[in-house]
């Protein structure tokens, strides 16, 4: 292997690490409230609302994929049912949602075939990071 190719690969690897680190940094602050939100209840609601929005994006993506024939109706039903239940839990319990929504999310994700998971990949990736940070 020549030196140029080796350095190029190393640079690409470093670049990838840098981009992933930036992504993780952005996601850890995905639910950071603005300074105008000051009470603990407000901060909790802000964080829960960010999760609701991301779950809503998953719902919309699943429904759109179903309409386009890229996601079976049965799978879409699983995903949509999860999003409805999760939104209800987040609305009712913005500070204790993770114990219910976390396992339900894993269960829903495990029902997806690899191709279906790939179709919803970006939305699942964001929710994966949120679930990890919410632990």
């Amino acid at each position: 292997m020549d030196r140029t190719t080796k350095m190029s690969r190393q640079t690409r690897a470093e670049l990838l690490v840098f981009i992933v680190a930036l992504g993780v940094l952005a996601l850890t602050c995905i639910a950071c409230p603005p300074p105008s939100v000051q009470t603990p209840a407000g901060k909790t609601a802000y964080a829960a609302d960010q999760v609701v929005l991301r779950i809503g994006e998953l719902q919309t993506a699943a429904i759109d994929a179903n309409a386009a024939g890229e996601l079976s109706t049965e799978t879409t039903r699983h995903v949509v049912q999860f999003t409805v239940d999760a939104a209800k839990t987040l609305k009712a319990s913005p500070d204790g949602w993770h114990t219910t929504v976390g396992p339900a999310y894993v269960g829903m994700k495990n029902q997806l075939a690899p191709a279906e998971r790939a179709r919803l990949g970006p939305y699942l990736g964001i929710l994966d990071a949120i679930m990890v940070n919410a632990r």
Partner: protein
Amino acid sequence: MNPELLALLLKDIIIPEIAAVIRAHANASGGKMPNDAQVLEALQLDADRYIRAGEAWLKANPA
């Protein structure tokens, strides 16, 4: 990492992207940030929106 590459990334991609997001947020909110009451209300409204949309789809596509 190559310092020149890092500087180029920051200057041409990362900083402009961050600035665009901040500008978009400021324009969308009229430059005002939400207070606690607005955030609490937004959670209820957003959750209701997706509950309604999801239930409507499930009703239209029964098992």
